């Protein structure tokens, strides 16, 4: 199968930016890094969990620590000013990337989960009551599901779940029933990390806005893999993590419409988020700093912008095409086996990941055997336990793709799965 048709980036030259892809595995796992017993080439297909970090992003981190490491915002000295400018401009870059108006609408958080919690705490706990409802989907990640479930318990708000249908798509008729005049927030995952489903976020936004509710979009799997524009989506809030798009761990972003963030109280208190403090009263700093208390993840924030530059250079449309082709190819190859169940919707409504099970082989056994072949996949409930309960399986194996994956790697996956089938037959 030829991947290059129809889009313009060269996978091999992308791979050259990721030295880790040359790693071999198979040896002692208690010592980090490649050792003498590592003899099997790595086939890394766990990108929905985290992606690898290309040299330009690693360089951005190293450049900061080697060249201008300083705390931001409170130094007059040159290093602090350099760090402050770079850290603040990183917000501008991330804002531009998702079509936000500017840095006022981008709060750097630890990750997607923290962004969900920020809105749940700063807005949900204050604004919701027993007369309100929050509408989620049955395929929410625990980061959204648990957070809103607990807000519901504390505020009395009704938490409703839009049904996931047999084919892994949302029942939009049910969505229209769930979202009513009591609804204050709809929180929906854009691309499901468990099923790969691409949800009709724009339709959910329209339903929510028809009832004066807000839409929170979990973009953890979508922002890294396709063009995302908050205005086009109709998102009032959008959360995503840098480490799933070539950036470092420890940094993510909350987009919020400026008027909404402006009206919200802070989530964390402390340094950097204040303007004037007396023993009695405090006034808050401007957006987005009001929500970034304490010394932030400076190197990670700067590297986040470098990661955005990297994926933007490759091209988000190209990345989407590449992912779609790999996922469709994997889907086709896995469908050749009668005893392999592939979860989620058909090709055109699916992102770049494939969850599956082999009859008679527990996903953890499957994952162990794939690991023997150097193939890294995830096995488990993918932080969607209620969805797995609904599917009636404790765990699934998941292969997820990114810009550096190749058709040959999908073939390696399929060969390893075939061996597992024969071993357990």
């Amino acid at each position, binding site marked *: 199968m030829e991947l290059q048709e129809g889009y313009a980036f060269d996978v091999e030259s992308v791979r050259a930016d990721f030295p880790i892809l040359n790693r071999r*595995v*198979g*040896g002692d*796992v*208690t010592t980090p890094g490649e050792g003498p017993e590592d*003899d*099997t080439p790595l086939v890394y297909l766990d990108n929905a969990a985290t992606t690898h970090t290309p040299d330009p992003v690693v360089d951005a981190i190293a450049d900061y620590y080697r060249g201008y490491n300083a705390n931001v915002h409170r130094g007059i000295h040159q290093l602090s000013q350099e760090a402050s400018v770079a850290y603040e401009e990183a917000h501008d870059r991330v804002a531009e990337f998702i079509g936000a108006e500017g840095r006022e609408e981008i709060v750097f958080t630890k990750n997607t989960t923290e962004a969900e919690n920020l809105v749940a705490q700063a807005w949900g706990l204050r604004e919701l009551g027993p007369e309100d409802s929050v509408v989620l989907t049955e395929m929410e990640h625990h980061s959204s599901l648990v957070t809103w479930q607990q807000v519901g318990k504390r505020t009395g708000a009704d938490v409703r779940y839009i049904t996931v249908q047999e084919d892994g798509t949302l029942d939009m008729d049910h969505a229209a029933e769930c979202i009513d005049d009591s609804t204050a927030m709809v929180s929906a995952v854009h691309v499901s990390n468990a099923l790969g489903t691409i949800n009709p976020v724009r339709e959910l936004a329209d339903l929510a806005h028809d009832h004066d509710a807000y839409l929170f979009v979990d973009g953890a799997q979508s922002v890294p893999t396709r063009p995302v524009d908050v205005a086009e989506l109709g998102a009032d809030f959008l959360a995503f993590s840098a480490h799933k798009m070539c950036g470092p761990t420890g940094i993510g972003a909350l987009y919020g419409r400026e008027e909404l963030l402006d009206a919200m109280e802070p989530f964390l208190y402390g340094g950097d988020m204040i303007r004037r403090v007396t023993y009695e009263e405090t006034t808050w700093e401007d957006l987005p700093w009001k929500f970034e208390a304490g010394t932030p993840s400076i190197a990670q924030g700067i590297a986040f912008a470098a990661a955005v530059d990297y994926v933007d250079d490759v091209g988000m449309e190209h990345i989407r095409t590449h992912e779609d082709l790999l996922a469709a190819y994997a889907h086709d190859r896995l469908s050749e086996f009668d005893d392999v169940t592939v979860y989620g919707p058909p090709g055109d409504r699916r992102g770049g990941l494939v969850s599956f099970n082999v009859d008679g*082989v*527990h996903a*953890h*056994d499957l994952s*162990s*055997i794939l*690991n*023997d072949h150097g193939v890294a996949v995830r096995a*488990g*409930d993918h932080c969607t*336990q209620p969805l797995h309960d609904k599917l009636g*399986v*404790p*765990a699934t194996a998941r292969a997820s793709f990114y810009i550096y994956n190749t058709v040959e790697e999908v073939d390696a996956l399929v060969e390893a799965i075939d061996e597992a089938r024969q*071993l*357990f037959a």
Partner: protein
Amino acid sequence: MGLGSDMYRQQILDHYKNPRNYGEMEDPDITHVGENPSCGDTIRMDIRLADDGETIEAVAFTGDGCAISMAAASMLSERLAGMTIEELQELDTDDVTEMLGVDISPMRVKCAVLGRQVAQDGVKIERGEIDVDRTKTED
């Protein structure tokens, strides 16, 4: 090849496909259930004691889970017959991996030891030493 490649030797696959002493016992002296929620591994162990109240006469188990957890429970059910409940309490993780005859990768140790832990906790609950609803061996 890695640690895991040896994990699926014939003996383990045999016990997984043809588990020994599989089923529920009528009137067991000791019965207990364990579950590792993230794996979905569930094991129930039933133990019958001899008249001395110390010697394990028979063991039965039921469960659902990965090959490592099921094979370990199956092997344990054979191994325990004839042992005393004191000897059961002394079984540690090394004993379980020795019984399996393979190296278990660190992430999978929780699977291998679930059956043993269920049996040990079952005894302790019967003696009133601990109070747990369901045993688990994952974090």
